[in-house]
């Protein structure tokens, strides 16, 4: 077991190092931030001073070395635009993104499981067929376009919901939360549904496949023989058994939600990390871009590591195979 964990840790470390190099060298080559930051009427001396103060005069490899040394101390550089540490800027916007992702995940589960179970119990009914067709659409429709259509319908024509921003936030345990007030809730509803659509289709499919499989098992026949009511069989015996794959996949997909929120946040001007990234790309704010990409890579490597270790605990074949190879 410890061999397996050490191997995976080393691998995760390697991925982080490789990604940091790719991200830093790539972003380093894009555009010249000096052109944007220094005003046109600054003289040569002023330019030199700014270039030096930002460390842009040093060779690439030295800049990378300095970046890594600072990053290890939790300093990912200072934003050119906001003159604030990039890490703080991102952490500042992280709760908004996390709230959006969590609410989206809740929507996917709360609506996806009943719909999927329904479709699995009566696979040939009209309702089930429409649910499944809907889930194909959920997979095919580009998220950003659905978002635009939602704005057009609910904000422009019907005027029911606001289309941008976060609305009123309440601070709970030091974190600003939108869902608790009506104003905040009306702001988060559209972006969260938009972000949830893809995962909703996924949950529907998983729940349907699980239900169809479980219904043929002997323990369901035994429940019937015991004379349990349909409601009890479905709510307790079926639901418990289909939750295992659903929970596993959703755990894995949470990172995907955070990554995909870049699109939803841009459409709905939701003040999260994703929107910060897109704004920073527009303004060539290198430190923020690098810091965002590093944080998200780190997050993913961490999630994958945890999932790998959990899997190997649950299924010893995984780690035996890996050690052999």
């Amino acid at each position, binding site marked *: 077991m410890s061999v397996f964990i050490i191997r995976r840790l080393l*691998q995760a470390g390697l*991925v982080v190092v490789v*990604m940091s190099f*790719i*991200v830093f*060298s*790539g*972003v380093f*080559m*894009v*555009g010249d931030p000096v052109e944007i930051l220094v005003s046109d009427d600054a003289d040569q001396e002023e330019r030199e001073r700014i270039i030096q103060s930002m460390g842009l005069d040093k060779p690439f490899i030295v800049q990378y070395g300095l970046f890594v040394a600072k990053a290890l101390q939790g300093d990912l550089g200072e934003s050119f635009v906001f003159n604030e540490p990039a890490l703080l800027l991102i952490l500042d916007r992280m709760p908004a993104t996390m709230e959006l992702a969590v609410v989206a995940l809740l929507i996917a589960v709360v609506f996806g499981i009943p719909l999927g179970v329904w479709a699995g119990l009566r696979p040939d009914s009209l309702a089930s067929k429409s649910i499944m067709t809907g889930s*194909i*659409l959920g*997979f*095919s*429709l*580009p*998220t*950003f*376009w659905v978002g*635009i*259509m939602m*704005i*057009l319908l609910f*904000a*422009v*024509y019907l005027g029911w919901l606001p*289309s941008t921003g976060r609305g009123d936030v309440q601070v709970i345990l030091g974190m600003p939360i939108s869902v608790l007030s009506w104003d905040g809730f009306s702001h988060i509803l559209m972006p969260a549904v938009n972000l949830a659509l893809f995962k909703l289709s996924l949950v529907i499919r998983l729940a349907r496949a699980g239900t169809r499989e479980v219904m043929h098992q002997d323990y369901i026949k035994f429940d019937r023989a015991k004379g349990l009511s349909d409601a009890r069989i479905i709510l307790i015996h079926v639901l418990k058994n289909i939750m295992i794959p659903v929970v596993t996949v959703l755990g894995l997909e949470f*990172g*995907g939600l955070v*990554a*995909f929120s*870049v*699109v939803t946040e*841009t*459409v709905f001007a939701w003040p999260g990390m994703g929107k910060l*990234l*897109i704004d920073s*790309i*527009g303004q060539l704010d290198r430190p923020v*871009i690098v810091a965002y*990409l590093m944080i*998200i*890579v780190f997050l*993913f490597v961490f999630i*994958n590591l945890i999932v790998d270790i959990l899997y190997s605990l649950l299924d010893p074949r995984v780690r035996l195979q890996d050690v052999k*190879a």
Partner: protein
Amino acid sequence: MTVAQENLEIVPRGADDAAKFEGVQTPFRRFLSDFCESKLAVLGFVVIVAITLVAIFAPVLAPTDPYDLATVSVLDGRLGPGEAMMSGVTAHLGTDGAGRDMVSAMIYGLRISLGVGIGSGVIAMLIGISVGLFSAYAGGRIDSVLMRVVDIQLSFPAILVALILLVTLGKGVDKTIIALVFVQWAYYARTIRGTALVERRREYIESAVCLGLSERRIIFRHLLPNCIAPMIVVGTMQVAHAISLEATLSFLGLGMPQTEPSLGRLISNGFEYIMSGKYWISVYPGIALLVTIVSINLVGDRLRDVLNPRLQK
């Protein structure tokens, strides 16, 4: 299809035998009749052919040339559907912010979206097939290292990998294609490796080895053709995915440059006018994008059912 050709070679060909062939059910004919059982899939296929033709003949079909700066006028900007432009041409679906006729812009945008989607799909497939076959054939250490790389890449969502690449590479047609190829190759590599490992143990490969055929001949003439079916399925799904991803990236302002407006870019351009109710700039390119992606997915879904040997009757 290859199996069909081999069968044909065994049977002696004569003028008298030609009649006998008419009723023979070749695998290709069986595939065709299986595929046509789903009306939706046939509809999807017809739509794809129509869309492809529109994209190829864009310069002939488009009422105006959206790139011709001499005829495009800002004064025509944001005309509603059905209004006449300065040049006298009716803009059936309105005009965008720069005064381009939406019908023409969409036809050209479709051309770019399809081109980038299919182009990146083909390149990714070639790279994926090479790496996957090599990995399956080499086995051992090389195989496990290559598949680890594939696993690691697939553990990141496609949008994130594409984002990182495009942020570092910048905008442009070539860069968008590079990013899309990078995102997709691993799917092909993993799929073909899996199939190749199974096919390798089959008797026809053993007999080919016994006959003393060269490795190259075994791989390209015997192994590869039998691994093609799952590649076709993955390929169709991936092209739809690539088109959607390209549109998303262009919407974020990362993929295609303003000078090469793909459907995603057109939707993004219309987004600024959406709050003032000028819906047509975003809605119509969106519908075109949607029809394209859904019909490719319908065909891909049916192909998966038909080509999956486990489901064959």
